[in-house]
Protein backbone atom coordinates (compact mmCIF):
# COMPACT_ATOMS: atom_id res chain seq x y z
CA UNK A 1 0.00 0.00 0.00
CA UNK A 2 2.86 2.29 0.84
CA UNK A 3 4.22 1.91 -2.64
CA UNK A 4 0.89 2.58 -4.33
CA UNK A 5 0.36 5.66 -2.17
CA UNK A 6 3.83 6.98 -2.98
CA UNK A 7 3.41 6.40 -6.72
CA UNK A 8 0.00 8.07 -6.83
CA UNK A 9 1.13 11.06 -4.77
CA UNK A 10 4.20 11.43 -6.92
CA UNK A 11 2.12 11.11 -10.07
CA UNK A 12 -0.39 13.74 -8.98
CA UNK A 13 2.36 16.08 -7.84
CA UNK A 14 4.37 15.64 -11.01
CA UNK A 15 1.33 16.25 -13.20
CA UNK A 16 0.55 19.39 -11.24
CA UNK A 17 4.02 20.72 -11.91
CA UNK A 18 3.88 19.79 -15.57
CA UNK A 19 0.47 21.41 -16.03
CA UNK A 20 1.13 24.38 -13.76
CA UNK A 21 1.77 27.07 -16.33
CA UNK A 22 0.33 25.34 -19.36
CA UNK A 23 -3.16 24.88 -17.94
CA UNK A 24 -3.44 28.28 -16.35
CA UNK A 25 -5.41 30.56 -18.58
CA UNK A 26 -3.88 33.97 -19.04
CA UNK A 27 -0.70 33.11 -17.20
CA UNK A 28 1.29 36.24 -16.65
CA UNK A 29 4.96 36.34 -17.55
CA UNK A 30 7.39 35.24 -14.88
CA UNK A 31 9.68 37.59 -13.06
CA UNK A 32 13.35 37.44 -13.96
CA UNK A 33 14.22 36.04 -10.56
CA UNK A 34 11.77 33.18 -10.86
CA UNK A 35 12.94 32.40 -14.37
CA UNK A 36 16.59 32.46 -13.34
CA UNK A 37 15.83 30.14 -10.43
CA UNK A 38 13.87 27.72 -12.57
CA UNK A 39 16.73 27.54 -15.08
CA UNK A 40 19.03 26.35 -12.34
CA UNK A 41 16.66 23.91 -10.70
CA UNK A 42 17.41 21.22 -13.28
CA UNK A 43 21.19 21.12 -12.87
CA UNK A 44 20.92 21.52 -9.11
CA UNK A 45 18.51 18.64 -8.73
CA UNK A 46 20.49 16.32 -10.99
CA UNK A 47 23.71 17.17 -9.17
CA UNK A 48 22.05 16.53 -5.82
CA UNK A 49 20.55 13.27 -7.06
CA UNK A 50 23.86 11.91 -8.32
CA UNK A 51 25.54 12.83 -5.04
CA UNK A 52 22.73 11.29 -3.03
CA UNK A 53 22.79 8.02 -4.96
CA UNK A 54 26.55 7.75 -4.50
CA UNK A 55 26.83 8.72 -0.84
CA UNK A 56 23.59 8.17 1.05
CA UNK A 57 21.39 5.20 1.84
CA UNK A 58 22.49 1.62 1.45
CA UNK A 59 25.24 2.08 -1.07
CA UNK A 60 27.57 -0.55 -2.33
CA UNK A 61 31.27 -0.03 -1.60
CA UNK A 62 32.52 2.93 -3.58
CA UNK A 63 35.97 2.00 -4.74
CA UNK A 64 38.50 2.42 -7.49
CA UNK A 65 36.31 0.98 -10.21
CA UNK A 66 33.48 3.38 -9.43
CA UNK A 67 35.75 6.39 -9.19
CA UNK A 68 37.41 5.62 -12.51
CA UNK A 69 34.06 5.03 -14.17
CA UNK A 70 32.77 8.35 -12.93
CA UNK A 71 35.87 10.25 -13.97
CA UNK A 72 35.84 8.73 -17.45
CA UNK A 73 32.16 9.48 -17.94
CA UNK A 74 32.49 13.02 -16.60
CA UNK A 75 35.49 13.92 -18.71
CA UNK A 76 34.03 12.43 -21.88
CA UNK A 77 30.64 14.04 -21.25
CA UNK A 78 32.34 17.40 -20.81
CA UNK A 79 34.59 17.06 -23.85
CA UNK A 80 32.32 15.31 -26.35
CA UNK A 81 28.95 16.57 -25.11
CA UNK A 82 27.68 13.14 -26.07
CA UNK A 83 25.78 11.11 -23.51
CA UNK A 84 26.19 7.78 -25.26
CA UNK A 85 29.98 7.76 -25.56
CA UNK A 86 30.44 9.11 -22.10
CA UNK A 87 28.14 6.58 -20.51
CA UNK A 88 29.33 3.54 -22.48
CA UNK A 89 33.00 4.31 -21.88
CA UNK A 90 32.51 4.86 -18.18
CA UNK A 91 30.51 1.65 -17.93
CA UNK A 92 33.18 -0.31 -19.81
CA UNK A 93 35.93 1.00 -17.52
CA UNK A 94 33.88 0.20 -14.45
CA UNK A 95 33.00 -3.32 -15.58
CA UNK A 96 36.61 -4.11 -16.45
CA UNK A 97 37.94 -2.83 -13.14
CA UNK A 98 35.26 -4.66 -11.17
CA UNK A 99 35.88 -7.93 -12.97
CA UNK A 100 39.61 -7.61 -12.46
CA UNK A 101 38.93 -7.27 -8.75
Amino acid at each position, binding site marked *: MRVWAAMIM*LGVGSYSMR*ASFISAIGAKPLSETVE*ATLRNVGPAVMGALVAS*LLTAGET*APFGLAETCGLVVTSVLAWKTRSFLWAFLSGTAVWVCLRLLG
Partner: protein
Amino acid sequence: MPGDFRRGALAMVPFMLPAVPFGILIGVAVADHPGIPNLAGWAGAPIVLAGASHLTAITLLAEGSSAFAAALAGMIVNARFLMYSAALVPRFRCQPRWFRVVAPYFLVDQLFALASTYTEETESGFRRRYMGGAMVVFVLWTVAVASGVALGPIVPNDLDLGFLVPLMFTGLLIPTLNRRPGVVAALVAAGITAGLSSLPNRGGLLIGALMGAGAGLGAERMVR
Protein backbone atom coordinates in the same frame (compact mmCIF):
# COMPACT_ATOMS: atom_id res chain seq x y z
CA MET B 1 -0.85 17.90 -42.12
CA PRO B 2 -1.48 14.20 -42.12
CA GLY B 3 1.58 12.31 -40.99
CA ASP B 4 2.30 14.85 -38.25
CA PHE B 5 1.56 12.22 -35.64
CA ARG B 6 3.99 9.82 -37.29
CA ARG B 7 6.68 12.48 -37.62
CA GLY B 8 6.35 13.30 -33.95
CA ALA B 9 6.52 9.63 -33.06
CA LEU B 10 9.59 8.94 -35.20
CA ALA B 11 11.39 11.99 -33.87
CA MET B 12 11.03 10.61 -30.37
CA VAL B 13 12.53 7.18 -31.08
CA PRO B 14 16.25 8.15 -30.93
CA PHE B 15 15.60 10.00 -27.69
CA MET B 16 14.34 6.80 -26.16
CA LEU B 17 17.61 4.93 -26.70
CA PRO B 18 19.03 5.82 -23.28
CA ALA B 19 15.59 5.72 -21.70
CA VAL B 20 14.78 2.09 -22.47
CA PRO B 21 17.80 0.61 -20.62
CA PHE B 22 17.10 2.98 -17.76
CA GLY B 23 13.51 1.73 -17.61
CA ILE B 24 14.73 -1.85 -17.58
CA LEU B 25 17.09 -0.97 -14.71
CA ILE B 26 14.18 0.45 -12.74
CA GLY B 27 12.16 -2.69 -13.36
CA VAL B 28 15.07 -4.80 -12.15
CA ALA B 29 15.35 -2.64 -9.04
CA VAL B 30 11.64 -3.16 -8.34
CA ALA B 31 11.97 -6.91 -8.77
CA ASP B 32 15.09 -7.10 -6.61
CA HIS B 33 13.63 -5.41 -3.56
CA PRO B 34 11.46 -7.88 -1.65
CA GLY B 35 9.66 -5.07 0.15
CA ILE B 36 8.37 -3.55 -3.10
CA PRO B 37 5.46 -5.43 -4.70
CA ASN B 38 6.12 -5.79 -8.42
CA LEU B 39 2.82 -4.40 -9.64
CA ALA B 40 2.89 -1.36 -7.38
CA GLY B 41 6.50 -0.67 -8.22
CA TRP B 42 5.83 -0.98 -11.94
CA ALA B 43 2.72 1.17 -11.66
CA GLY B 44 4.95 4.17 -11.14
CA ALA B 45 5.95 3.85 -14.78
CA PRO B 46 2.60 4.79 -16.35
CA ILE B 47 1.59 6.97 -13.41
CA VAL B 48 4.69 9.12 -13.00
CA LEU B 49 6.47 8.80 -16.39
CA ALA B 50 9.72 10.08 -14.91
CA GLY B 51 12.51 7.62 -14.26
CA ALA B 52 14.73 9.65 -11.96
CA SER B 53 11.96 10.41 -9.49
CA HIS B 54 10.50 6.93 -9.84
CA LEU B 55 13.82 5.38 -8.94
CA THR B 56 14.38 7.83 -6.09
CA ALA B 57 10.99 6.96 -4.62
CA ILE B 58 11.56 3.22 -5.01
CA THR B 59 14.99 3.52 -3.40
CA LEU B 60 13.60 5.39 -0.42
CA LEU B 61 10.66 3.02 -0.02
CA ALA B 62 13.03 0.06 -0.06
CA GLU B 63 15.06 1.78 2.65
CA GLY B 64 11.93 1.96 4.78
CA SER B 65 10.76 5.53 4.35
CA SER B 66 7.12 6.58 4.43
CA ALA B 67 5.09 6.99 1.26
CA PHE B 68 5.02 10.73 1.81
CA ALA B 69 8.79 11.08 2.22
CA ALA B 70 9.41 9.01 -0.89
CA ALA B 71 6.90 11.01 -2.92
CA LEU B 72 8.34 14.30 -1.66
CA ALA B 73 11.86 13.35 -2.66
CA GLY B 74 10.53 12.35 -6.06
CA MET B 75 8.78 15.71 -6.38
CA ILE B 76 12.04 17.53 -5.69
CA VAL B 77 13.71 15.52 -8.41
CA ASN B 78 10.86 16.48 -10.75
CA ALA B 79 10.94 20.16 -9.91
CA ARG B 80 12.41 20.82 -13.33
CA PHE B 81 8.91 20.19 -14.74
CA LEU B 82 7.88 23.59 -13.45
CA MET B 83 10.50 25.06 -15.74
CA TYR B 84 9.31 22.97 -18.67
CA SER B 85 5.76 24.09 -18.13
CA ALA B 86 6.72 27.74 -18.04
CA ALA B 87 8.97 27.43 -21.07
CA LEU B 88 6.26 25.82 -23.20
CA VAL B 89 3.57 28.41 -22.52
CA PRO B 90 4.11 30.08 -25.93
CA ARG B 91 3.53 26.74 -27.70
CA PHE B 92 0.37 26.05 -25.74
CA ARG B 93 -1.19 29.47 -25.52
CA CYS B 94 -3.35 28.94 -28.61
CA GLN B 95 -4.30 25.36 -27.82
CA PRO B 96 -7.80 24.30 -26.71
CA ARG B 97 -8.38 23.73 -23.05
CA TRP B 98 -8.76 19.95 -23.26
CA PHE B 99 -5.31 19.68 -24.82
CA ARG B 100 -3.76 21.92 -22.20
CA VAL B 101 -5.10 19.54 -19.56
CA VAL B 102 -4.18 16.26 -21.27
CA ALA B 103 -0.85 17.07 -22.89
CA PRO B 104 1.15 17.97 -19.75
CA TYR B 105 0.63 14.44 -18.42
CA PHE B 106 3.22 13.27 -20.97
CA LEU B 107 5.69 16.13 -20.54
CA VAL B 108 8.92 14.21 -20.09
CA ASP B 109 12.42 15.61 -20.68
CA GLN B 110 12.64 14.32 -24.23
CA LEU B 111 9.22 15.58 -25.22
CA PHE B 112 10.04 18.98 -23.76
CA ALA B 113 13.17 19.11 -25.89
CA LEU B 114 11.28 18.18 -29.04
CA ALA B 115 8.19 20.30 -28.44
CA SER B 116 10.40 23.33 -27.87
CA THR B 117 11.52 23.04 -31.49
CA TYR B 118 8.02 22.77 -32.95
CA THR B 119 7.69 26.43 -33.72
CA GLU B 120 6.09 26.52 -37.16
CA GLU B 121 3.06 24.39 -36.72
CA THR B 122 -0.62 24.78 -37.17
CA GLU B 123 -2.48 24.30 -33.94
CA SER B 124 -3.62 20.81 -34.85
CA GLY B 125 -0.24 19.98 -36.38
CA PHE B 126 1.46 20.74 -33.07
CA ARG B 127 -1.06 18.60 -31.22
CA ARG B 128 -0.46 15.64 -33.48
CA ARG B 129 3.31 15.91 -33.40
CA TYR B 130 3.28 16.27 -29.65
CA MET B 131 0.97 13.31 -29.10
CA GLY B 132 2.96 11.15 -31.53
CA GLY B 133 6.01 11.63 -29.37
CA ALA B 134 3.95 11.22 -26.20
CA MET B 135 2.60 7.84 -27.28
CA VAL B 136 6.06 6.53 -28.12
CA VAL B 137 7.30 7.60 -24.70
CA PHE B 138 4.33 6.11 -22.89
CA VAL B 139 4.43 2.73 -24.61
CA LEU B 140 8.21 2.23 -24.69
CA TRP B 141 8.65 3.38 -21.12
CA THR B 142 5.95 1.23 -19.52
CA VAL B 143 7.06 -1.80 -21.54
CA ALA B 144 10.72 -1.21 -20.64
CA VAL B 145 10.00 -1.09 -16.93
CA ALA B 146 7.76 -4.16 -17.20
CA SER B 147 10.56 -5.99 -19.00
CA GLY B 148 12.93 -5.14 -16.21
CA VAL B 149 10.53 -6.49 -13.64
CA ALA B 150 10.18 -9.70 -15.63
CA LEU B 151 13.93 -10.04 -16.19
CA GLY B 152 14.88 -9.02 -12.67
CA PRO B 153 15.27 -12.48 -11.19
CA ILE B 154 17.56 -13.49 -14.05
CA VAL B 155 19.96 -10.55 -13.90
CA PRO B 156 23.08 -11.51 -11.95
CA ASN B 157 23.80 -9.53 -8.81
CA ASP B 158 27.58 -9.80 -8.89
CA LEU B 159 28.05 -6.48 -10.53
CA ASP B 160 26.01 -4.04 -8.52
CA LEU B 161 24.19 -2.54 -11.46
CA GLY B 162 22.83 0.20 -9.24
CA PHE B 163 26.02 2.15 -9.87
CA LEU B 164 24.97 2.55 -13.50
CA VAL B 165 22.16 4.86 -12.49
CA PRO B 166 24.22 7.73 -11.01
CA LEU B 167 26.71 7.11 -13.81
CA MET B 168 23.96 7.57 -16.38
CA PHE B 169 22.66 10.72 -14.71
CA THR B 170 26.19 12.12 -14.73
CA GLY B 171 26.41 11.42 -18.44
CA LEU B 172 23.04 13.07 -19.02
CA LEU B 173 23.67 16.08 -16.81
CA ILE B 174 27.11 17.24 -17.88
CA PRO B 175 26.37 17.86 -21.58
CA THR B 176 23.53 20.18 -20.54
CA LEU B 177 25.86 22.41 -18.52
CA ASN B 178 26.56 25.17 -21.00
CA ARG B 179 26.46 28.12 -18.70
CA ARG B 180 28.48 28.82 -15.60
CA PRO B 181 25.46 29.29 -13.30
CA GLY B 182 24.34 25.77 -14.20
CA VAL B 183 27.77 24.38 -13.36
CA VAL B 184 27.76 26.25 -10.06
CA ALA B 185 24.26 24.99 -9.26
CA ALA B 186 25.19 21.37 -9.97
CA LEU B 187 28.49 21.45 -8.05
CA VAL B 188 27.08 23.21 -5.01
CA ALA B 189 24.10 20.87 -4.93
CA ALA B 190 26.31 17.79 -5.24
CA GLY B 191 28.75 18.97 -2.59
CA ILE B 192 26.10 19.83 -0.03
CA THR B 193 24.15 16.66 -0.67
CA ALA B 194 27.27 14.57 -0.25
CA GLY B 195 28.10 16.41 2.95
CA LEU B 196 24.63 15.77 4.31
CA SER B 197 24.58 12.12 3.31
CA SER B 198 23.83 10.94 6.83
CA LEU B 199 20.46 12.69 6.96
CA PRO B 200 17.52 10.24 7.02
CA ASN B 201 15.24 9.78 4.03
CA ARG B 202 17.95 11.29 1.83
CA GLY B 203 17.10 14.69 3.28
CA GLY B 204 20.38 15.98 1.94
CA LEU B 205 18.87 15.72 -1.54
CA LEU B 206 16.26 18.35 -0.82
CA ILE B 207 18.59 20.73 0.99
CA GLY B 208 21.37 20.28 -1.56
CA ALA B 209 19.00 20.90 -4.47
CA LEU B 210 17.56 24.05 -2.90
CA MET B 211 20.97 25.47 -2.07
CA GLY B 212 22.28 24.54 -5.49
CA ALA B 213 19.39 26.37 -7.17
CA GLY B 214 20.07 29.35 -4.93
CA ALA B 215 23.77 29.26 -5.75
CA GLY B 216 22.96 29.13 -9.45
CA LEU B 217 20.69 32.15 -9.04
CA GLY B 218 23.50 33.96 -7.24
CA ALA B 219 25.92 33.08 -10.02
CA GLU B 220 23.48 34.50 -12.57
CA ARG B 221 23.32 37.76 -10.64
CA MET B 222 27.08 37.97 -10.45
CA VAL B 223 27.48 37.48 -14.17
CA ARG B 224 25.47 40.61 -14.83
